[in-house]
């Protein structure tokens, strides 16, 4: 039950994009097209789950025993960057079809705030390994949900008669505001 709570809170109630404001650069950059949004979302799910597993392990098995917790910023970012590179090489060779559909987003994800944020938050919330994995699944699912919904709306606003000065990014931000308002309505759901 508690795991369900962690997943659901990360997925809807504390949605990483719309409530916590993390990973916004990619949110506004990639979401102009539904196809690229889907590709990016899958890449994020893939990278985030693996990265949080490895970062969690590195923190508790290497940094903590040597009392080097202060190195976590540098260590996490190096871990994530190396992992992304490894994943890209692996996909390119082993699953070329998957690489063609989402491989181009992998380098973009290296500086994606969400991956690093999840690594930090899993430590701050003192999650066990399983809880950290469920948490990162919830966060990446929430990312995918917000991103794909937003892409659908943006494709429509692109051809709608928007007032001249609001075309482009301003109306995108206001759309995000309305989505965020909707997601705020989830707070308190299931008593979470």
């Amino acid at each position: 039950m508690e795991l369900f709570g962690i997943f659901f809170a990360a997925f809807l109630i504390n949605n990483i994009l719309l409530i916590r404001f993390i990973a916004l650069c990619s949110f506004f950059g990639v979401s102009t097209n539904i196809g690229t949004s889907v590709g990016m979302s899958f890449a994020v799910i893939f990278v985030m789950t693996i990265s949080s597993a490895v970062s969690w392990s590195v923190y508790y098995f290497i940094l903590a025993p040597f009392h080097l917790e202060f190195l976590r910023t540098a260590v996490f970012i190096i871990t994530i960057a190396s992992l992304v590179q490894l994943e890209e090489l692996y996909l390119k060779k082993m699953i070329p079809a998957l690489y063609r559909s989402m491989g181009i987003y992998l380098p973009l994800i290296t500086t994606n705030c969400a991956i690093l944020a999840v690594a930090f938050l899993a430590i701050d919330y003192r999650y066990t390994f399983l809880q950290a994995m469920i948490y990162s699944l919830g966060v990446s699912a929430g990312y995918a949900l917000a991103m794909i919904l937003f892409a659908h709306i943006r494709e429509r606003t692109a051809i709608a008669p928007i007032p001249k000065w609001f075309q482009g990014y301003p109306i995108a931000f206001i759309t995000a505001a309305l989505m965020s308002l909707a997601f705020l309505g989830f707070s308190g759901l299931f008593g979470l």
Partner: protein
Amino acid sequence: MSLWKDFNQGVIRENPVLRLMIGLCPVLAVSNTTINALGMSAAVAFVLISSNLVVSMIRKMTPDEIRIPIFIIIISTFVTITDYVMQAYAPVLYQALGVFVPLIVVNCIILGRAEAFAYKNPILGSILDGVGMSIGFTLALGSIGVIREILGAGAVLGIELFDPAVAATIMILPPGAFITIGFIMAFLNKMENKVM
């Protein structure tokens, strides 16, 4: 005069937040009060200027293929310093900023400026670019913070201006951030007479 240009292009013309659209994550999250906004701007300014300085100093001896990991390590060092200094000397601010302090390391502004400018330019120009970009960032973040705090809590820097009960609480919640920045961008579009 090129040094002056290095400095002031980051303030308005190539304002990182409002024109280049990078480094958005902290802008929306910490602008709910002016004090948080200014605190974050100070942290980013410190990291940006220091990393620009160091990257520019070692630019002649960095191999091209591994420059990104090297930039990241330099930036993460300064972020760690900022993180612990803030924890020690401004714990309330640190609590308010939360996870966004360590997230400065992936803030696109810092990595972007290191890659685009500090790697290719001498020390003085890089420092001035860092200062200019920081001022631009502070202006953007500060103005959003002021607007949100006034409309959402009826106060500025903690000083109450009018009864908070009539203020629009939505402004200090997430949607308010998006709305504020949307309107500011529309206003800037009109001022510059072109659409981004």
